[in-house]
């Protein structure tokens, strides 16, 4: 039993150690170095970068990012769960419908964001349509605000919610629902009492796969938020680009990662034994 388990775990573990954990120690090293005069970094070793992380300014940005990500995750679940349910109940067409969800995501992320700009801006299609109908006179300001950021995040990460939900729902026995109905449960009750608890692992996985990348997002707040209110992903990204402050970027990322990890452990509570 254990030998087989080792053989199953070893390849992925090896790849992760060599191509992720070992390189990550480089970042650990960077975080304790001093930035170079113009770019680059080197000795002397210092903890000053960590001291700078605990600046209330970054705390405020982190809180904002947390709220936006949480709202986006909740919306992804609201949109994704019924969709996953629909797909899992479509019999032979399941694969077709699942692929249709993924189809837009095989084009570039950036292009999809630009498509939303075409739609939402003042002279965009939505405003033009509403004006033509006479519903509005002046264009609605739909772009470059928090709503647009949330929309971009939901659009960008919805499949990350749908796929794990589908993976658990697909397995769900329709007879269970029928049984619940036979026992007199209304469809809504059957959903809350039977379906939802059974796909809890999928909801957990989906929430993790959506929430985490939302927290690190930087293109959506830049392009759909107009760069007017940033998320923590932008701050991290900036340190490695325009600010050219790799040591601070490294320290900031590591503190951020530690916080997210702790939050996950807290959220999973007693399940921390099998984290995933």
């Amino acid at each position, binding site marked *: 039993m254990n030998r087989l388990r080792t053989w199953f775990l070893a390849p992925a573990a090896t790849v992760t150690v060599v191509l992720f954990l070992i390189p990550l120690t480089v970042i650990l090293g960077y975080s304790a170095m001093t930035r170079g005069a113009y770019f680059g970094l080197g000795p002397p070793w210092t903890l000053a970068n960590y001291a700078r992380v605990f600046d209330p300014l970054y705390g405020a940005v982190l809180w904002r990012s947390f709220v936006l990500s949480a709202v986006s995750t909740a919306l992804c679940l609201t949109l994704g769960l019924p969709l996953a349910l629909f797909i899992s109940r479509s019999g032979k067409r399941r694969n077709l419908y699942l692929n249709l969800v993924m189809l837009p995501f095989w084009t570039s992320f950036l292009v999809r964001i630009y498509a939303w700009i075409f739609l939402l801006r003042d*002279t965009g299609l939505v405003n033009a349509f509403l004006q033509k109908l006479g519903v509005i006179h002046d264009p609605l300001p739909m772009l470059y605000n928090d709503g647009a950021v949330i929309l971009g995040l939901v659009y960008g990460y919805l499949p990350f919610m749908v796929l794990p939900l589908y993976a658990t729902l697909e397995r769900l026995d329709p007879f269970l629902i029928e049984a619940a109905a036979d026992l007199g449960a209304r469809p809504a009750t059957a959903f809350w009492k039977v379906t939802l608890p059974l796909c809890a692992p999928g909801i957990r996985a989906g929430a993790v796969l959506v929430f985490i990348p939302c927290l690190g997002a930087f293109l959506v707040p830049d392009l759909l938020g107009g760069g007017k209110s940033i998320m923590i992903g932008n701050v991290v990204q900036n340190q490695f680009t325009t600010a050219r402050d790799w040591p601070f970027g490294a320290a900031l990322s590591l503190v951020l990662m530690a916080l997210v990890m702790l939050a996950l452990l807290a959220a999973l509570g007693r399940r921390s034994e099998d984290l995933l």
Partner: protein
Amino acid sequence: MRRRLFLMGVAGAAGCSRARERRLYVYNWSFYIAKETVPRFERETGVEVRYRTFESAEEMLAKVSAGNSGWDIVIPSNAFVAPMREQGLLAPLDHARLPNLGNLEDRFRDPAWDPGLGYSIPYMYGATGILYNRSVRPEPRGWADFWQDRYGRRVTMMDDPSEVFAAALKRAGHSVNSDAAGEIDEAKRDLIAAKPLLRAFISADVRDQVVAGDVLMAQIWAQMGRLAVNERRDLGFAYPAEGFALYCDNVVILRESREPELAHRFLDYLLRPDVSAEIAQAVTTATPNAAARRLLPVEAREDPILYPPPDVAARGEWYRSLPAAGQRLRDRAWTEIKSS
């Protein structure tokens, strides 16, 4: 291309005793060359050029700063030439191998960022100004107009701290390269005050929204301004009264290059009037090459957007790379502006 590589591979495998195939690896900004530039060089010299592009200076620096990137030639902007030289990344230029060097305008023969052109040759240059819709009255004249509440928030600045600080600093009468704490703090407060009047921070891609009519006034590069004005005649481009930032991209040979002789040939080729003129035309930008500029059709040669008259050009100030402390001050101020 693929087939040729394959054949070369076969030739190599067949034990062809010739030493390493001579190749030149060139790393440039994206959309910053003419279609024919590289193929013509390949035809003229019989050497293969592997040409690729980068999107940000940092992407390029991250790759070449380890000193074993494989690239021979890269094209950093002027602010990075001195830092790269100080880090020992650049190979000194042998002017005897660059007979076309004399084609450059005088002011580019001895620029502040690389006196005597010991390590770099100017490639193309440009400035940052204001693109606006002529329906706006009065027409904007300077950065101060970004603090005026008369455009119905249809105004954008670039999503780049250097550019945004340059505008605020110039408006307050300081250098675009200021790293004085007091001046940066002042600029930060000014920008926080201007932010409610801005629709967004958008870089070069704002061009589309100015043409579409969403945005009435935008901070943008002269190159993008030219392209937008070409599309819509009722757009204008202004060089701000308070002064503005200038940049110049430069061709350098990396010290790790194993083909310095070939690299010099490529540099000299880029200095050829016909080649430089062709690139300037293709990417719609200003060439520092006087002989090349003379070859341009008159409307391009005397374009007031790309080549502002001397009294306007005198208000320009070249970017420099900021030392660590100033850069850090600015980044924190930038985060504060953005999250305000």
